[in-house]
């Protein structure tokens, strides 16, 4: 019996050692979509977050102790995310949660966080700072979806053409981007030629190709994300549409998409990113981030890596500054207007609506020349002042919330 107990204890210890689970009490809990259609991006976000924890710990940790953060997979499902966060909050006593990579899931988690009075740092593009979602407990280290819509639409109508068509992923993120494009189109004299709603997770767009070819817009907006975006670009390329005069604008693109699309992602493609590694030439502190990330993971960081890094580091440093890991009111008070200089020069979380004030980079494709760390050419950086609405507008969800979406 003694032998059995000893072996059990040893096995248990080995399990803890190999799984990375620490017996120390965690101070925050993060979930990422490590499976499902956004898993590649979710993995990037987790990597960014892990690097931030390492950096914070290297600088002395949180309140003099090594910061322990528990991480898991939300399976790209709001119900799973909420169930797991509940287990982490109730079972481990954490008062700060973070992560998720979907506007829809972020909104659901934010609502839960508000009801349960825990701080929630959303690392992705989400509408937490807008209208009724603005409950005071949520922060966003990505951006509001409409911002990338506004940035890419402004760039496109100024440089690429006027007539446009859009393929929209049929959920909150896609709707917000579509609304932004419709508003900017009206302001800048764009000509809207039609929208195609795409169910979440769709990977075969072949039935839409004839309509896109027949409409032949100046600009096709690819307002879908993850595996759907990769598939749509490949299928447009396969049909021979990517080598013509049509331009393709992606409000939120990704380095993985550029890799997956290969030669199809050519100079006709323009994607919105909140981070690209060449920013290190402009912002000295970005260099440290890019080098550390590349050393640890063997690849350059993406915008999701940046979202994970900034959200995590800001949350942990705010805990340090507030002098607490559990007093939610104090942490929120510290995060409001929190100033930081991490990867893109001096930035802050706007006090009124908790959004990270950051710019959008427009990256043009380079087709088959893309290799190694070279994914494209930065053709513009749209400052936050040109994309972010005022606190009052965000509070009242104008102008984008008032847009009548086609077919809705």
């Amino acid at each position: 019996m003694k032998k059995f107990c000893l072996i059990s204890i040893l096995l248990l210890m080995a399990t803890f050692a190999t799984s990375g689970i620490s017996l120390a009490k965690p101070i925050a809990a993060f979930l990422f979509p490590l499976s499902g259609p956004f898993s590649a991006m979710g993995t990037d976000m987790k990597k960014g977050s892990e690097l931030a924890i390492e950096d914070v710990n290297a600088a002395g940790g949180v309140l003099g102790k090594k910061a322990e953060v528990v991480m898991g997979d939300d399976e790209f499902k709001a119900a799973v995310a909420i169930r797991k966060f509940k287990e982490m909050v109730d079972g481990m006593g954490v008062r700060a949660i973070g992560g998720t990579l979907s506007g829809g899931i972020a909104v659901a988690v934010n609502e839960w966080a508000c009801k349960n009075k825990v701080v929630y740092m959303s690392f992705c593009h989400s509408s937490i700072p807008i209208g009724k979602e603005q409950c005071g407990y949520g922060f966003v280290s990505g951006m509001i979806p409409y911002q990338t819509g506004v940035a890419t639409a402004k760039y496109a109508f100024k440089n690429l053409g006027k007539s446009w068509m859009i393929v929209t992923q049929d959920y909150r993120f896609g709707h917000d981007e579509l609304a932004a494009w419709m508003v900017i189109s009206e302001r800048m004299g764009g000509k809207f030629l039609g929208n195609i709603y795409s169910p979440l997770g769709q990977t075969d767009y072949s039935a839409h190709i004839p309509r896109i070819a027949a409409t032949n817009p100046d600009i096709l907006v690819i307002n879908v994300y993850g595996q759907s975006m990769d598939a749509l670009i490949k299928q447009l390329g396969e049909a021979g549409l990517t080598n013509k005069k049509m331009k393709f604008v992606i409000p939120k693109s990704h380095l993985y998409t550029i890799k997956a699309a290969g030669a199809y992602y050519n100079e006709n493609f323009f994607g919105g990113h909140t981070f690209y590694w060449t920013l290190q030439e402009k912002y000295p502190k970005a260099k440290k981030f890019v080098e550390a990330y590349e050393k640890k993971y063997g690849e350059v960081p993406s915008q999701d890596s940046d979202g994970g890094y900034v959200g995590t580091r800001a949350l942990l440093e705010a805990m340090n500054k507030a002098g607490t890991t559990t007093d939610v009111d104090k942490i929120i008070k510290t995060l409001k207007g929190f100033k930081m200089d991490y990867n893109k020069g001096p930035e802050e979380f706007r006090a009124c609506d908790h959004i990270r004030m950051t710019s959008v980079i427009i990256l043009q494709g380079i087709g088959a020349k893309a290799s190694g760390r070279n994914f494209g050419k930065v053709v513009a950086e749209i400052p936050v002042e040109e994309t972010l609405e005022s606190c009052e507008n965000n509070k009242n969800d104008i102008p984008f919330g008032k847009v009548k979406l086609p077919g809705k």
Partner: protein
Amino acid sequence: MEINTSLIINQIIFGLALGAVYILMACGLTIIFGLLDVVNFAHGTFYMLGAFATYIIVSLFGNFWLGLAFAIIVVGLIGWITESYLVKPLYGKDPLYPLMLTFGFSVAVIDLMRAIFGTVGKIVPLPPIFSGSLIWGEIFIPKYRLFIILLTIAILILLWLFFKKTNLGMIIRAATRDSLMVRALGIDVPRIWTFGFSLGVGLAGLAGGVNSTIQSALPDMGVEMTIECFVVVVIGGLGSLGGAILGGLIVGQVVSFVSLLASDWSNVAIFITMFVILLVRTRGLFGEAGRL
């Protein structure tokens, strides 16, 4: 949006290409169900394995054709092993057992592939011969879509010849109707089952290889395909090869035209079609009557 004749013809062509992949998948599922009465929930997983098999060969040797051949052979072999060691012990037991087994197998293999290949889509480049489209005025047919349609027709002809003209094919047909009688004639029926299972999943592997150039190879790419494939088979009638073909053609055209007219309904439309057909013909279009 102006709907003209060219657009309708284009939609029909794209619908045919879509339907062609469904047909390859559904024929495989039908052979397995018709022969073994096994509802293969892992069919989409074999489709995914076919895509990865093609990816591996194309990455190593740069030969797409070799990749397609490898997809059928390797996936067929995996099917052979799966049937021999996992499915066979469950014959004669409650039909729920093989269903649960194939479901569990599917989950395990997807996770295994995720661990090996990660979650980033693997690219299988389109062979240069298939890049671009054939164009007549406003009508255009991407060359690769045309290839998919022609390949499926060729496979169907080969399947027809196999089942109607070869001894083995005739034995398989006989075994689907009365395996006891075939066994009484001294034929090794379990081996026939193994072969049928391998052939069925080999077709799924081929479909995966064909689609790997259109979609990136991903561990969970077969999940949705499994559901769509079951819809095709149910519409056509379980166990009927003719039904699988007709079901594939119907689903391809439904997806194509609903995508054009009401894109947000494209996913639901195939299920509505299935409900309507089942209301009219509860066994599907060719249920029972047209078994292998």
